[in-house]
């Protein structure tokens, strides 16, 4: 995967054998002043994103808004249809049969909230993104098996191709790879 060397690389990526090593490496990198870090793990590890300084996801708020919008959409649709647009006497029930409108309101609430959760998650993760420079590293396939990767972005102010590689090698990784962009 040797791309044209004229382009600057995207990042440097170190491969670790355990999550403990990865966490240790994150700590060390942050201590060394690196800020543009990203870790890749085969399964979700709360400590890793906590270590990277990600605490609260925006998603719950998005879902809450989705739910509220859904509830209003559902209820107002039924109200408008049954009371305003074409009011009809159905079995002597009142036009505004609020009791009967509960189930549909509930369902639209859930539908909108769940939609917000999924779309929100993909949007926050900037997906879909089928192409990404990290895939240029052949061993990155193991990130979906049992290996843990730490990448330092080349746009990090402290980034220096040489020094950073030295630094990463000093963390006892399995391997350090250059991520071509």
């Amino acid at each position, binding site marked *: 995967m040797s791309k044209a060397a004229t382009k600057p690389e995207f990042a440097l990526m170190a491969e670790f054998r355990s999550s403990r090593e990865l966490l240790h490496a994150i700590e060390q990198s942050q201590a060394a002043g690196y800020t543009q870090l990203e870790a890749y793990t085969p399964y979700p590890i709360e400590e890793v994103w906590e270590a990277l300084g990600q605490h609260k996801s925006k998603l719950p708020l998005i879902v809450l808004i989705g739910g509220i919008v859904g509830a209003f959409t559902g209820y107002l649709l039924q109200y408008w249809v049954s009371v305003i647009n074409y009011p*009809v*006497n*159905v*079995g*002597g*029930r*009142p036009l505004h049969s609020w009791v009967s409108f509960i189930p549909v309101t509930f369902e639209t609430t859930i539908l909108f909230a769940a939609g917000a959760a999924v779309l929100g998650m993909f949007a926050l993760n900037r997906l879909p993104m089928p192409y990404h420079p990290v895939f240029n590293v052949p061993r990155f396939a193991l990130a979906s098996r049992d290996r843990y990767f730490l990448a330092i972005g080349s746009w990090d102010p402290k980034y220096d191709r040489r020094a950073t590689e030295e630094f990463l090698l000093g963390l006892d990784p399995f391997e350090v790879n250059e991520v071509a962009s």
Partner: protein
Amino acid sequence: MVEVTVDDRSLELPVWILPGHADGSMTIHLGYGRTRTGRVGSGSGFDAYRLRTSRAPWHVAGARIRKIAKHYELASTQLHSNIGLAPGPNEEPGFGVEGVEAERRHLVRVGTLEHFRQEPDFAQHMGHTPPEGLSMYPPWDFPGYAWGLSIDLGACTGCNACVVACQSENNIPIVGKEMVAMGREMHWIRIDRYFEGELEHPHVHHQPVMCMHCEQAPCEVVCPVGATVHSSEGLNDMVYNRCVGTRYCSNNCPYKVRRFNFFKYNDTETPVLELLRNPDVTVRTRGVMEKCTYCVQRINHARIEAEKEERQIRDGEIQTACQQVCPTEAIVFGDVNDPESKVSDAKAKPLAYDILAELGTRPRTSYLAKLRNPNSTLEES
């Protein structure tokens, strides 16, 4: 089946044993068993003309009857021949309970004249009638006309004229024996028959049942597309062209008066049949529900005429098809908002009652209980 032999003439026939039929006699209907009457008439029933002679055209004596090892399927809209009577001793448990149940549910209410003199409104106390206006919903107003119907059970003789009139007025398809045997008859009005008393000599009561046009109709609430809703005059409208055919309304109808087009029963291809039909009533297609409309086409016609003349519809101006043909005038239709109307008059009588009133459906069709004035000496003999 049995073989009936009169002199040297014999005929194989199916039998249907009815309570109250005179001992040692049988009734055979003429007019069936024809061979060249077209699609519907050919080959249906048995030709009883073979048994009669010009000497005694209506009665034949000395017939002999013999059971034979053949079976013939009969179709009836009312399979429960013993309604109003207890199940026979040989019947399987669970079968034959219709009679007991019908009695217990006070569907048809009958009293003697004597009883009536003592307690004129006895019929209203036979079932459980909830207090008026008891509902979770605020009341609906029917400011203009409010159509209603009353049936006098005392006058009804069970002649079936209403059934036939309704059928021709409303383009109701004839579905044939197989469908009737499956429980898919299409009559909008049916006559429930009840026997009361001993099997040997019961009293027979007839109760015509059609759509009750309930003010709080259970059928309407459950229709997902609003194909059955209430009109401003209190009719339970059935909009065939909106119906998608969930049959939910029929399931939820306590009176089971709705009828479903399981197949395309109406022949719309044969041009000559177009002339057969009433142009004022939609010919229903396959997959839709239908039921009694109180002959809404007649109501609409009368309303338009009255409106053009800028007057109210007169009482009696609208006659439903069943009312029109009823030889005993058991059926009365009209505006219940008008206190002077005949129908209001009927409904105000002490004998008036609603069936299944305990369900809170508030039917617009009500009944007048039947009164008998038995002669005690005759009764006992």
